[in-house]
């Protein structure tokens, strides 16, 4: 498919065309492929953590269920919704650029960023809850080490850790370690995403994009959707699995 592509000379060279590409089509294709290849490395990056998660879930099912049940499912679900909507607005931003509606693009981008920030805000609340419940693993916060209060049978205080049979706080700590590693890494990606969005927004504001040249919006869209997909997997794995054993077992 790329053969001969370079040979077909573009009508007039676009100002955004870099010198080493033959035409806009080649440049766009290189950019898109580049982002996809980058996303592959991201998949493998998270893959290592997913592997650790799966392994320890396999070895310590009870502790993982107990720890998972302590997470706030409402906030988790809310965040899932927020991210999916943001993915949608992002898709709309790409669509608007393609048909050349600058104003719609800008609105969609701003919406996406607001939603992204909302997600991070909710995440911060969740982290703070964990901080209060002394669930931040190990000595990560030196003055507040991992030391959750374990609930006695019958106690329904949601701030205490409800261990089901076979669970130990030590293995619960392992869950939280993975939880913070994965969601933290995900949040970091969100922050980077917001940075990219800011740049794209400025470019859109200055009218850099047109139906002929919209690759940057499209490519950052790919990144944003990818971050969404990671969360789509994190949510059930961290929050949902074993929820049916809550307070029972």
């Amino acid at each position, binding site marked *: 498919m790329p*053969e001969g592509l*370079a040979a077909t000379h573009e009508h007039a060279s676009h100002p955004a065309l870099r010198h*080493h590409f033959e035409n806009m089509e080649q440049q766009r294709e290189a950019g898109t492929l580049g982002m996809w290849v980058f996303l592959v*490395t991201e998949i493998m990056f998270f893959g290592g953590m997913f*592997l650790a998660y799966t392994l320890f879930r396999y070895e310590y099912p009870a502790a993982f269920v107990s720890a998972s049940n302590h997470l706030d499912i409402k906030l988790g679900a809310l965040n899932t919704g927020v991210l999916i909507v943001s993915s949608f607005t992002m898709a709309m931003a790409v669509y608007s650029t393609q048909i050349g509606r600058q104003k719609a693009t800008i609105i969609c981008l701003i919406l996406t960023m607001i939603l992204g920030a909302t997600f991070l805000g909710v995440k911060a609340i969740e982290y703070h809850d964990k901080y209060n419940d002394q669930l931040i693993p190990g000595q990560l916060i030196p003055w507040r080490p991992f030391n959750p209060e374990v609930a006695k049978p019958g106690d329904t205080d949601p701030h205490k850790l409800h261990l089901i049979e076979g669970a130990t706080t030590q293995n619960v700590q392992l869950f939280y*370690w993975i939880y913070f590693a994965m969601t933290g890494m995900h949040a970091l990606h969100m922050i980077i995403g917001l940075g990219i969005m800011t740049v794209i927004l400025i470019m859109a504001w200055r009218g850099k994009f047109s139906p002929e040249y919209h690759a940057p919006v499209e490519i950052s869209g790919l990144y944003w959707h990818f971050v969404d997909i990671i969360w789509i997997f994190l949510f059930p794995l961290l929050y949902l699995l074993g929820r049916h054993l809550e307070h029972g077992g």
Partner: protein
Amino acid sequence: MEEFVIPKQPGSNYLNAEYGLKSWLLTKDHKRIALLYLGAITFFFFIGSLYAMMIRLELLTPQGDLMQSSTYNKTFTQHGIVMVFFFLIPAIPATLGNFLIPMMIGAKDLAFPRINLLSWYIYMAGGIITIYALLAGGVDTGWTFYVPYSTTFSNSYVIATGVGIFINGFSSILTGLNFIVTIHTMRAPGMTWFRMPLFVWSHYATSLIMILGTPVVAITILLVALERLAHIGIFDPAAGGDPVLFQHLFWFYSHPAVYIMVLPAMGVVSELIANFSRKNIFGYKFVAFSSLAIAVLGFLVWGHHLFVASQSVYAGMIFSFLSFTVAIPSAVKVFNWTATLHKASISYDTPMLYGLGFIGLFTIGGLTGMFLATLAVDVHVSDTYFVVAHFHYIMVGGTLLAYLGGLHYWWPKISGRMYPEGWGRFSALVVFVGFNLTFAPQFLLGYMGMPRRYHTYPVELVSWQVLHVLSTAGASILGVGLMIPLIYLVWSMRYGRIAEANPWHLPGLEWQTPSPPPTENFLTTPIVTHEAYEFAPPEHKEVVGKFERQQPAES
């Protein structure tokens, strides 16, 4: 060959297009970035070699008389880290690959020149942090960072080193990404997949490993650093973690990483063998696909590093079998190179000497790998000098020789000057002899039971010491052999004979442009009409073989 009228030397080339430090540090030209890498890599190679000499000197005697145990441990660790992460992995891809891939496929540059420059800066940042760790006190975990030693027990700069390697990993990812996209989208008109030189094929396979494996080791090293910081225990059995998980994650990358080192070398050797015998490679498609096969199968075999690590014996069996399968594509390459020489016209130029040396040493390196894949023998030889000898045959005998061969081969194109041929041949010989003397004794040492990473060994084992003395003697010769090219290559940059555009009279695209090439590589975008390694005869009358001309394909 007559399709290409080699252009006259233009006034400007990539070296003299701009001047000043800034023009180098901010360059987006893949050729200049390759030279930046070349400088940095040579520097790291020098550091790594220094450590190697210290190791060899210490092992001359069974006692630890040159340095203390802790110093020795840091020495071999730093030798490994510097050589693996800062020399072997980037050596060929980031220098020769960076320089040549766009030229070989007829592109003006890599797809993402700015990312290319960024990858060099990332490499340097990782390198500087690592050097800082080495200077601040060093690291003593072995380059493998096995837990729980690295997370809990080591008192050295593990975090700083880990961060250095983590950062360096991104440079590798970005290089791989750039190559893949370039090869997919930037080929010149008429440059079909099966017209690409095998060098490009092997770099494509290498890039696959880089983008698929590196992120896994990045997250693993990051987890080690975090463990060390917070002591939580994902790898620590005392807290419910699992040290063997670390080994799985680590080798998931680090075994394929071996192919990151050796696949580009195979690519270089394919070029050398074909071009210096003026023949097309025997079974081009087989060789091209064997690169991809190695890249895929290379990911299935990491568990052969864990045969004695309390891995399940059944998993060991699977890994053993898969390890043998990866030997097949490597064997195919060796046989095909050999067959290429049949009825060829072989010249004895320095690059070819390195290429031929590679075939021999890689054969030994590959075949001794069979011992390690064989479960019962591996139980005896794993973690001994047998392993050390084996992978040095692949890394030094393979990668380093190919790197030197490639550097000599493309030196006229890179620098615009010829290297001194006599010195080149002489040093190739010295390197070959020194190398074998260094590492062949280590095979014997390993089977006799000498464990690796040993600072001292039992005094009563006289034969061990004899072998160590031989090895150290060889290392000295090897060291001299490596200094010679360093000196004459630097010398030739200024005083060497001016190189023609195509000093070897070869059909590859990179030779159809002035030496050194202009900034955009070609004066006009080339249109490719012939297969790789097609040696056209018309301007020569004395043709030995009958030559059948290929129809030029559609462009």
